[in-house]
């Protein structure tokens, strides 16, 4: 009995080993684990779930969403990096988790070796904003005030080493502003501090404060993303104001290194359809989110460029670098 069982087990193992390479042909043959690297209820989570339900239809297999939030998104990303590269574990990823954080502290993955970018699906849209009843109507007025009152103005970010912090610090450095950085724990507390008048200006995603912007409680002074926003069409971008950089971070889909190219292609195609699906776009638009597809290779190249660019600047911006 025991020997028979052993033989059967061995046969199964062998069969799996032999059948392995051909698995990609009928991929996906079982549900796919989709690890979301932020908590349930946030923007990333909402967008990911909206897209995954569309992607499920196309792939004909369920994407099982699991939230693995924490440590600036690195916890979820490392979970993907550690998984087997068989196409059945993928996850969401933000730009700092691969391009910036690995430079500042130890993470258990090599961002460009252990992970493959399947595709980027949605840009995060950022801006510098002040309270609706503050005296500054334009970016120039604000800059002038900071220059006249060195050391008095405070700016908030959702945390040290976030793109929000780095971009704002770099703006300050290029303009020679003397102001103080106050890192909060996430965008929610940052927004509360701005609304309560405890900091003067913050860099945050516009989607998370859309309602306050429409109500006039928050005024956008400068768009730090590449292009102007439909919500505040008159506010200029930082590129228009003569800066040579801007705040670029996408929500992307990542897979572990070693995932078969055929599987990557199928996944990428599914998310491309999901990004341009009318229903998804409409649901996202209600929350002021705007999906946009970028092929994986192209986004990977962008990440490598951004990593090199920001890496060189980190010490100047007052961020500690990994020893």
């Amino acid at each position, binding site marked *: 009995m025991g020997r028979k069982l052993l033989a059967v*087990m061995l046969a*199964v*193992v062998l069969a*799996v080993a032999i059948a392995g390479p051909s698995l990609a042909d009928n991929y996906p043959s079982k549900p796919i684990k989709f690890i979301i690297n932020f908590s349930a209820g946030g923007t990333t989570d909402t967008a990911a779930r909206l897209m995954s339900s569309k992607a499920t239809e196309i792939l004909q297999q369920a994407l*099982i969403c*699991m939230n693995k939030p924490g440590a600036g998104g690195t916890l979820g990303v490392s979970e993907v990096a550690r998984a087997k590269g068989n196409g059945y574990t993928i996850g969401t990823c933000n730009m700092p988790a691969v391009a910036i954080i690995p430079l500042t502290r130890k993470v258990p993955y090599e961002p460009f070796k252990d992970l493959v970018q399947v595709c980027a699906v949605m840009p995060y849209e950022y801006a510098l904003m002040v309270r609706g009843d503050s005296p500054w109507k334009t970016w120039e007025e604000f800059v002038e005030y900071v220059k006249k009152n060195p050391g008095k103005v405070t700016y908030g970010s959702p945390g040290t080493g976030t793109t929000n912090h780095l971009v704002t610090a770099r703006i300050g450095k290029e303009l020679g502003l003397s102001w103080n950085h106050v890192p909060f724990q996430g965008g929610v507390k940052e927004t509360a501090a701005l609304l309560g008048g405890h900091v003067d200006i913050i860099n945050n995603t516009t989607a998370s404060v859309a309602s306050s912007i429409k109500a006039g409680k928050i005024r956008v002074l400068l768009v730090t993303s590449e292009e102007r926003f439909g919500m505040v069409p008159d506010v200029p971008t930082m590129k228009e104001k003569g800066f040579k950089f801007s705040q670029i971070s996408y929500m992307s889909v990542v897979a572990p290194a070693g995932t078969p190219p055929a599987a990557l292609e199928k996944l990428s195609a599914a998310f491309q359809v999901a990004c341009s699906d009318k229903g998804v776009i409409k649901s996202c638009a209600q929350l002021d989110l705007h999906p946009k597809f970028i092929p994986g290779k192209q986004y990977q190249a962008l990440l490598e460029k951004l990593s090199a660019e920001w890496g060189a600047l980190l010490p100047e911006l007052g961020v500690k670098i990994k020893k």
Partner: protein
Amino acid sequence: MIQNRMDFKLGIGLAVFCIFLLVYLIPKHVGPLNEADALMPTLVTGFVLLLSLLLAVQAIRRPGDKQHGAESHSGTKGSRWYTIALVVVIMSAYAWLLDITGFVLTSLGAMVALFLVFGVKRWLPILAISLGTLGGLYLCFDIMLGAPLPVGTLVETFLE
């Protein structure tokens, strides 16, 4: 003589732990004191050190409250220390094996082992309660909520 042995040992033990934190763990795993990161851990550790020394000194002079000590029960009807240790060992094995042998097998094994340790010898209730609990959890997590419990790497290999 020392009046309250338990408190004295506790105070000294904590003090030793704090010194270990101050001279080794904090410098090695947080950073030098002049940095903001290390300020809070150092301050709190210093505080614990102070309090635990105080506790040890107090214990020398003041006798403990005999009525409430956990010792008063042991040896009579309570489990022996090795039974408690056994439960801890089973729970640790449960936690570490969950990833490998998966939710169903590990939980079943652990629950049966726990029942035996607790002195339940009849197999019918053991299996009925274990399988009932696990079935309920599986139904709840995997089927209703779509949040799967771990399958286990070993089991996964077989299922493929």
